[in-house]
């Protein structure tokens, strides 16, 4: 309840404020609180994603977007009455809907009694991994996750269509948004290897604990974003040239889809990982590993694409 109350306060504050920098910061706090809320509901994987994407990288992306425009929002010309009415009615319907909804944590709720028991009983046997969430996301509902990966790819494609790709590298160390900061540079130098290593851990440990390709891709990209911010645009771009990112993003989707097509050619349904090995459970393991890799590559490439597209534009102007 306290968390929800804070969420409402932050939402109202974000609407009232005209300083967009503060609004972006509030969005970050909002996401962090949401992540805490998910934690409270025992949805560790979702909380992890929300913290990495919502509180982490999207704040940076919004700030770099803000960097291209003005910090202060103009007063809206139209009256806010109609939007207020729409929001009011929507809110009323949502509250009305809750009247007959099962309580949070009710063991007799339909969500707990219909498909979930099957996953709990069979995921360890059929897919053979301790993290059931990963089993559901990557295997039972792996096609949805494939679709989500394509959604991320589409988002990157949209940014590339609109802003173009910043070709080549301009090796201008020191030319960055925050200037020459000695302490920051030292801290970043220490942090970046740890961040990249942690991303790899999250990537490959998703079968056992919270994590997987989405979170790992975001964290990996964060390492590069941080380095770029502290050391200027040259070096990070030498390691991963912007001209290659869209190919990398496409490659990730093709890895995921390729696993599906392989199963298809082996005479099994699309994305049936048991086609990958003589032992179905080993096949599931390999399949999940490969598709998570595809997800990680696409997410990493798309987030870095968006960041480069924004930051590259700002400095050129």
């Amino acid at each position, binding site marked *: 309840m306290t968390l929800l109350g804070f969420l409402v306060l932050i939402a109202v504050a974000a609407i009232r404020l005209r300083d967009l920098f503060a609004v972006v910061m509030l969005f970050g706090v909002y996401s962090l609180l949401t992540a805490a809320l998910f934690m409270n509901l025992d949805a560790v994987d979702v909380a992890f994603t929300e913290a990495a994407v919502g509180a982490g990288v999207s704040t940076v992306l919004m700030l770099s977007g803000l960097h291209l425009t003005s910090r202060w929002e103009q007063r809206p010309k139209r009256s806010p009455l109609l939007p207020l009415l729409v929001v009011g009615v929507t809110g009323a*319907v*949502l509250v*009305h*809907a*809750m*009247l*007959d*909804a*099962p309580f949070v944590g009710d063991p007799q*709720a*339909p*969500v*707990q*009694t*219909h*498909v*979930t028991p*099957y*996953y709990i009983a069979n995921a360890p046997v059929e897919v053979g991994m301790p993290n059931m969430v990963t089993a559901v996301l990557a*295997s*039972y*509902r*792996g*096609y*949805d996750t494939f*679709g*989500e990966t*394509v*959604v991320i*790819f*589409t*988002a990157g*494609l*949209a940014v*590339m*269509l*609109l802003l*173009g790709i910043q070709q080549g590298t301009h090796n201008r160390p020191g030319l960055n948004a925050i200037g020459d900061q000695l302490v920051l540079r030292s801290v970043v130098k220490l942090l970046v290897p740890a961040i990249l290593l942690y991303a790899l851990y999250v990537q490959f440990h998703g079968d056992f604990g919270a994590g997987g390709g989405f979170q790992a891709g975001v964290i990996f990209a964060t390492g590069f974003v941080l380095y770029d911010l502290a050391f200027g645009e040259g070096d990070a771009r030498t390691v991963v040239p912007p001209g290659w990112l*869209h*190919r990398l*993003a*496409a*490659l990730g*989707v*093709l890895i995921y*889809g390729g696993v*599906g*097509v392989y*199963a*298809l050619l082996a*005479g*099994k*349904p*699309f*994305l*049936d*990982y*048991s086609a990958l090995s003589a032992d179905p459970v080993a096949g599931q393991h390999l399949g999940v590993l490969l598709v998570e890799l595809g997800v990680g590559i696409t997410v990493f490439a798309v987030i870095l694409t968006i960041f480069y597209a924004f930051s590259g534009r700002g400095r050129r102007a």
Partner: protein
Amino acid sequence: MTLFEHLPVLVVIIPLLAAPLCVLLDRPVLAWLAALLASWATFAATIGLVAQTASGETISYYLGGWAPPWGIEYRIDTLAAYVLLIVSGIAAVVMLAARTSVAKEIPADRAARFYAALMLAMAGLMGIVATGDAFNVFVFLEISSLSTYALISMGRDRRALYAAFQYLVMGTIGATFILIGIGFLYMMTGTLNMADLAARLPAVSNAATISAAFAFLTVGIGLKLALFPLHLWLPNAYAYAPSMVSVFLAATATKVAVYLMLRFVFTVFGHEFSLEQMALHYVLLPLAVVAILSASLVAVFQQDLKRMLAYSSVAQIGYILLGLALMSPEGVTAALLHVFNHALMKGALFMALAAVMWRVGSVQLTDLAGLGRYMPWTLGAFVIGALSLIGVPLTAGFVSKWYLVTAAIDAGWWWLIPVIAVGSLLAVIYVWRVVEVVWFRPPNPALVDQREAPLSLLGPTWALALANLYFGIHADLTTGTAETAVASLLGGLR
């Protein structure tokens, strides 16, 4: 499993995987070739599905090999195959014309990615239709929506950016509402599979949560199908998008939203809940009538021909919803026929405008005076499409209007006939304005050196125009399929 058994998933993953391939190829011509091949392969696969479901069979395909409701199921019945055919058929024709039009309207360094986005939009729409899983609908809705926003923003006019942004805001609200609706359904039933939902919903249908889910889904899908008054995004989006995007969207996007509404209203909730408990038809009927009359009237005053056709689309969606609101098998059949026929007419009309845009660089009515002398074939096809839009006998448009009028009479709603008549009359007026200007006005001096459009644009335009005549004469092809689809969709209704 043979390749034939994989058709349900192939029609979605062929365009879906063509998209990253287009990005990797990175050259306009190669990307276009990949997209062309993918769209025709998909079209061929869809014909296979239509043949398999022609007499009312349902094909089920387990993705990942997991049985529903634990895994995701693709479920193709006659209705789904029929809508898949519209989407893939239009995409295949659009791709034929795309190379010429895109080379002129899209910068060469972005053309490959443009084709990729077009493939994603197609795959998204196909995925929405093919799936039997409510959450999977949302995932593919996101794919098609995001790529559509990007495609619209590629219009040459700066206003395309604002149009895309407007659609992004409205579309995202729609998608969020749909997600909330699906979330409520899951909360009350514990399942996401549509067939399983249909089986488990009656037990909880009195809960406020289910009514709210129905309301959220209706409004969300209403935003996507440009249900009056939620259509405000549509005119600008169609008017400022690149020509090929306008053709593809006008012929397919709202049709898929209509399909989604049918799926939720009849398959998931069932007509007893949707009609008797929620009385959806009393909401749809007045909105459909207002849409037909007001949007047709606004179309009469448009100078930009793409905008005119866009308003006409809002009115045509009104006819489709009118058929739905009659809530009889005849009415829904009329709606389905109009979904198909409207795709053909708007495809032909927007394709003709794409050819005009290619030659003249404008579709403002004032710039086109006397153009009929220079581009008689293009504008001839435009006239055929327009006649079909009005509903002249021997065109496809006549068939669906005829069914609609008959269904209205059967339902005893005589007062709908003047509404349909006035709508058609307004269509005559806005079409006649164009005919008068391009054929009977003295030529605009700026047009003197114009010639006919190249064959790559003229061919697809005429293919669609002739389809309007073909399905107007051989109406039994579409009516038969529509009746089979309705029979399996409505089941118990009367």
